[in-house]
């Protein structure tokens, strides 16, 4: 009699995993309650959220006042969004004459029209986009915003404000800081001692001074040195101050990237017969900048947020405008400042967060060919 071996003739169907490792309960156990310490932290965190979130929601939504003409509407305990509504144009455009708001909107559209083809890699013609963004757009934006020519009414910068000033300062500041930073970083690694010492000196001086001091110098000290009657636009002073200040930080970030490029890259480029400029522009900089992306974006986000410091020299950026608007006696009531600041926080967060997300996307794209 042949041995009766057990041989299956068909494959058994797949079984679900043990009950304890599947479903929300198992996920909770694995992630939130895996050890007693983890369980304690989870419980504390939930308690903290339960303690803070409901009052916040009650303040921001349930008790909030959405419509109203003046302080009478907002005497309750909820957020005063009616204030933000009444002042919305002020927060966006500052004191820019309402009849001319379309000019700011057009500039915004022109900017987006340049930024979108720039930001989406699939769209061709980057060379033209760069030309548009760096030459055509600034000139058009300046003419449109400032006016005084081509039949546009003159709008002095003292009437600019709100998000408009925040973006003008931030964008112009970045446009100054980035190329200047690249130049300073390269100069600091130069073989010519004079250039190296000059670049090092500039970087160290600007990094050694707080931004607030720079702004104060620009707004309080500079007018004393200038001959009587000569005044430089305050907004321009602030933009140059911020741009130059951040170019020093940018330079150090980029220098970090330059230092990580192995010597072989330079030597390889030399062996190909590339000139010094070509070596830097075609081989070294593209790699160094890619490596520096997180640092560069970090600096840009810091610059963007630091534009709010211009309020101490009485320029009305978004935050300054909100702060000033809370001093309107028609809206003098307890809930108004908090509502204004909450609004500012949401806008700043939205803009900074999108910048950070975009930088992650670029980083992943640039790193696609070079797994680490």
């Amino acid at each position, binding site marked *: 009699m042949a041995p009766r071996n057990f041989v299956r003739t068909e494959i058994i169907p797949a079984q679900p995993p043990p009950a304890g490792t599947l479903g929300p309960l198992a996920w909770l156990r694995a992630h939130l309650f895996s050890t007693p310490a983890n369980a304690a932290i989870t419980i504390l965190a939930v308690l903290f959220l339960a303690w803070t979130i409901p009052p916040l929601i009650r303040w921001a939504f349930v008790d909030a006042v959405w419509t109203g003409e*003046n*302080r009478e509407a907002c005497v309750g*305990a909820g957020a005063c969004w009616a204030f933000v509504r*009444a*002042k919305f*144009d*002020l927060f966006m*455009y*500052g*004191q*820019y*004459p*309402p009849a001319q708001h379309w000019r700011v909107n057009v500039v915004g559209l022109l900017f987006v029209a340049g930024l979108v083809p720039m930001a989406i890699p699939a769209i061709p013609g980057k060379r033209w986009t760069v030309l548009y963004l760096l030459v055509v757009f600034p000139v058009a934006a300046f003419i449109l915003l400032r006016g005084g020519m081509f039949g546009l009414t003159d709008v*002095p910068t*003292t009437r600019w404000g709100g998000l408009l000033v925040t973006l003008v300062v931030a964008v112009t500041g970045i446009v100054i800081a980035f190329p200047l930073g690249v130049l300073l970083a390269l100069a600091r690694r130069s073989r010519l001692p004079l250039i190296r010492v000059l670049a090092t000196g500039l970087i160290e001086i600007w990094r050694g001074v707080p931004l607030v001091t720079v702004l*104060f110098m620009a*707004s*309080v000290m500079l*007018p*004393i040195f*200038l001959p*009587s*009657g000569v*005044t430089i636009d305050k907004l321009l002073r602030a933009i140059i101050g911020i741009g130059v200040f951040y170019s020093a930080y940018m330079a150090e970030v980029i220098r970090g990237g330059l230092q990580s490029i192995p010597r072989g890259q330079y030597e390889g480029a030399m062996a190909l017969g590339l000139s010094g400029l070509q070596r830097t522009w075609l081989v070294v900089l593209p790699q160094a900048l890619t490596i520096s992306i997180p640092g560069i974006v970090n600096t840009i986000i810091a610059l963007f947020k630091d534009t709010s410091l211009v309020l*101490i*020299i*009485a320029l*009305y950026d978004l935050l*300054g*405008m909100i*702060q*000033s*608007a*809370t*001093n*309107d*006696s*028609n809206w*003098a*009531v*307890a809930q*108004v*400042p908090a509502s204004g600041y909450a609004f500012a926080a949401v806008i700043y967060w939205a803009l900074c967060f999108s910048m950070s997300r975009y930088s992650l996307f670029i980083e992943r794209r640039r790193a696609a060919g070079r797994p680490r």
Partner: protein
Amino acid sequence: MKNRMIAAGFGLCLPMVAIPASAQTLNDVQGRGYVQCGVHTGLFGFAEIGDDGEWHGFDVDYCRAIASAIFNDADAVRFTPLNATERFTALQSGEIDVLIRITTWTMTRDASLGLIFAGVNYYDGQSFLVPTELELTDAAGLDGGTVCVQTGTTTELNLADYFNSRGLTFEAVAFAERAEAVSAFEAGRCDAFTADASNLYSTRMTMVDPDAYVVLDERISKEPLGPAVRQDDIQWFNIVKWVHFALLNAEEFGITQANVAEMAESTNPEIMRLLGRDGTFGEMVGLSNDWAYNVIANVGNYGEIFDRNIGAGSPLGIERGLNALWTDGGIHYAPPVR
């Protein structure tokens, strides 16, 4: 040849040297077409940006009054918001023509900053905000109590001076930020909060229950606030000063924004001189003779400016008190137009 060039050089230099002695602010302003006015960056009732995006306020209306005197246009002003540190530099450097920014007139500022105060448009003074339920009538009633105060200001010194000189005891609770001091006071940490009175009225407005607090009538310090100009231009100084006096005189004679056209027909010689029907008082300071008429027609008299921005007609509801005319028990007393 060389000598002639040197002479020509001197000739060119002379007017440049002469500029500070006869600085023509009025000419500059007229050439430019607007007055550059330095105001606060945002203070309830004094300088605030309304829902319409325009500047409003007590100090702001003074700027508009000066513009009206020169251009008969209350909007011929560019406002430069300034914070406390940059205000005097802005005036010295010529960035602004006149500083109207709740600036206290003190001897140091008058004597050492190269500027000159053109009068007092608001008599302020340090006072106390107290809970209504304490039923206090004067600050002496705070004997033995606690007072919330912002540290590092003259306010703190005035407070100590006041209590010590009267042999009263008190406990000061100092805070670095004004907002902290206010919220501590609101939370019941102190019996009173002290600051300049004009400030206390707006502080009261921003409290959760404004009716539970009251500003004491007593003032424990003098804070005369007024417009300042550069001290090298007497003509401009006179214009700013007399716009202020015209506003006061107009209130004294009962000339208002509404009735100024009617009052211009008056036979009262004082009114005729003020409104330019008699004499050439405007020309004496380089303006047209109807300068005061234009001021009143565009912004109203002192009382109207006060009521509209900080007084009974505004949310702040500050009482006239010291800022009433001398005929009404206050100390505003303007020299006559004569």
